[in-house]
C-alpha cells in the first residue's frame, strides 16, 4: 500500500510535467517572441511550481524549502518575462502578422506626446 501523500505528490508532479511539455511545445511552435513568452511564462511557471510542491508533499521534510522555491519562482518568472517582452518591443522586434491587438504601442505614443507637451 502506497502512502496517500506519495500518491498526491505523484499526481502533482505529473500535472507539472505535462504543463512543462506543453510549454516546451509552445516555445517551438508559436510564431513570434511575444506568443512564445506566453508559453514560457504561464505554463512553465505553473509546471515548475507544481513539481516543487509535489516533491514537498512526497517528502514532508522538504515542504518548507519547496514552498520557498515556489514563491520565489512566482515572483521572479513573471518579472523576467515582462522585462524580456518590454526589451523586445522597445528594440523593435515586430509582431506576428496575424496579431489582432497591440495596446502597448499606442500607449507609448500617447506618453511621448504628453512628454513633448
Amino acid at each position, binding site marked *: 500500500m502506497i502512502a496517500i501523500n506519495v500518491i498526491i505528490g505523484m499526481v502533482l508532479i505529473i500535472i507539472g510535467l505535462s504543463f512543462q511539455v506543453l510549454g516546451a511545445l509552445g516555445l517551438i511552435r508559436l510564431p513570434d517572441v511575444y506568443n512564445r513568452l506566453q508559453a514560457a511564462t504561464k505554463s512553465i511557471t505553473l509546471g515548475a511550481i507544481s513539481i516543487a510542491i509535489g516533491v514537498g508533499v512526497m517528502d514532508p521534510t522538504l515542504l518548507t524549502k519547496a514552498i520557498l522555491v515556489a514563491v*520565489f519562482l512566482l*515572483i521572479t518568472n513573471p*518579472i523576467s518575462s*515582462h*522585462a524580456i517582452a*518590454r*526589451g523586445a518591443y*522597445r528594440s523593435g522586434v515586430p509582431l506576428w502578422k496575424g496579431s489582432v491587438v497591440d495596446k502597448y504601442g499606442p500607449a507609448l505614443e500617447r506618453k511621448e506626446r504628453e512628454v513633448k507637451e
Partner: protein
Amino acid sequence: MMERTTFHRSLPAIALALLFAATLFVAFVEVDFGEPRIEEELPVNYQPGEEIDTENITTPGLRYLANSSEETGSANLVTAVVVNYRGFDTLGEVTILFLAATGVGALLSFIKDDDEKKKKKILPPSLILNKGARLVLPLIILFGVYVFLHGHLSPGGGFQGGVIIASGMLLFYIAEPTKGASHKVISIIESTAGLAFIGLGIVGLMTASKIFLANDFAGDWGEVGMLVSAGLLPLIYIAIGFKVGSEMTGLVEKMRGDGS
C-alpha cells in the same frame, strides 16, 4: 626591425622578473608548506560511507576522509580541504581574483566613452522590474550570506556565497541603471576582508601549532554539525565571502561603465 627594438626594451623587464623569481626561490626553498604527502599507490575505488582502515592509510585523500571531521570540526569535507589543509592555496586564489579585478579596472580606466553614437538614450527600467528587483534583492543577499555562513555544514562556501551576492547586486544594476554602490565603500569592504583573512592566518601562527592558517580551535566550541564547531573555518569563509562578493560587484560595475 620593430620587433628588435621592442625586444631590447623588454630586456630589463625580463631580467627583473627573473631576479624576482630567483629571490622567491631562495626565500622559500627552506620553508615547509604543510605536511609531506604520502606518496604511494592510489586507492582502489573507494565508496563513500565505507569503513576506512585508519592504521594503513596510503594516500592523502583517504587520510582526509578518515580524519577531517575530528581534525577540523567541519562536516563538509570539501571545506575542510579548501580552507584547512590547503588554506594557503585559497589565499593564492583570492589574490589571483583580486589581481584580475584590479587589472580589469586599470584597463578600463584608459577607455573614455566619448563616442556620441554609442551614447544612446538609456531606456529607464519599468516599474515592475524596479519594484520586483527591490523585493528580491534582500532575499538573494540573505541566501548568499547563508551559503557562506554554512560553508562547513552544507555544500557551498565563501566563493559561492560571494558570487551569489554579486549576482544580486547585478540585478540591482539592471533595475537601476543610473545608481550604483560607491567605489570607495566596495574597496573598503574588500580590503577589510582581505586583512581579516591574513589576520586569521596570523592567529594560527600565534596558537599552539605555530603554522600559518592553522586551525587550532577545531571542535573546541561545539560538536561537529553545529554552527560554531569548526573553529576558525567559518570566520575565514566569512572573510572570503565578503572579499569575493565585493570584488565581483566591483568587476561588474567597472564593466558596466557609466549608465549602462
